């Protein structure tokens, strides 16, 4: 298998995730798009690990999975707090810090 297959797939997933982050208004859907981006990174790590025949790629993919799990936990807690304070999780309404 070509290395490029996996890298191009990851690039496509990454770009779809970036599109989702930019276009979504719902905070939960933005977090889902961030997950797409993180998964694209994981595919890259494991593919390069397979290319160099090194376990480092897999180890760092596991670390990324752990960090992503922590990120989702904190992110959803913030979304819950936002919902409790404003009765809405629409990100276009969250403009308190807008200059």
């Amino acid at each position, binding site marked *: *298998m070509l290395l*490029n297959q996996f890298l191009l797939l990851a*690039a496509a*997933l990454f770009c779809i995730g970036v599109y989702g982050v*930019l276009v979504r208004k719902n905070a939960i*859907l933005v977090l889902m798009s961030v997950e797409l981006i993180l998964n694209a990174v994981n595919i890259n790590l494991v593919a390069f690990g397979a290319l160099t025949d090194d*376990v480092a790629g897999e180890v760092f993919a596991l670390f990324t999975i752990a960090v992503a799990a922590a990120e989702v936990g904190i992110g959803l807690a913030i979304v819950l707090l936002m919902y409790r304070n404003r009765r809405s999780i629409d990100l276009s309404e969250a403009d308190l810090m807008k200059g």
Partner: protein
Amino acid sequence: MSALFAAISSDTDLMVAQNVFFGVIAATMIVSALKVVTTKNVVHAALWLVVVLAGVAAQFILLGAEFVAVTQVLVYIGAVVVLFLFGVMLTRASLGDDETVAEEKRAIASIVGVLLFSVMAVALIDTWADDRVVIDEPQRVAEVSDSIFSQYIVPFEAVSVLLLAALIGAIVVARKD
């Protein structure tokens, strides 16, 4: 792209089954990922996300990384998606056909996405023209764990502390007081 096809066709020991499976899974993943970012129903987006995550796990198996694939299924499909569904439930976020896409941003966001992909694709094809991934046997789980608990013990402990901090932080942020 033509360099890619040339490299594929000039392959002497073509792994047909792996390539076919890769194509099918990759196409499913791309379609599902597009559904995740375009569907108007939040629960449907979470369910499409499950398909993408399962596809990523399948790609890990194709790459011979079985332990990462199992962890992907356990952590992402088992925990993260359930967390998302709980988030949807607790915020009562527009379960129906609610408009969650910023219409005015759609054009510029697609331009950004397509441009980014073109730049990355050109760079990748130029750099890794015909490098091959040779998977003769799956990575042994023992090697991964040996590596984590010897060479990467410091980052491992850092991740443990990070998870503890995230746990406490999530409770502190989300609790009613």
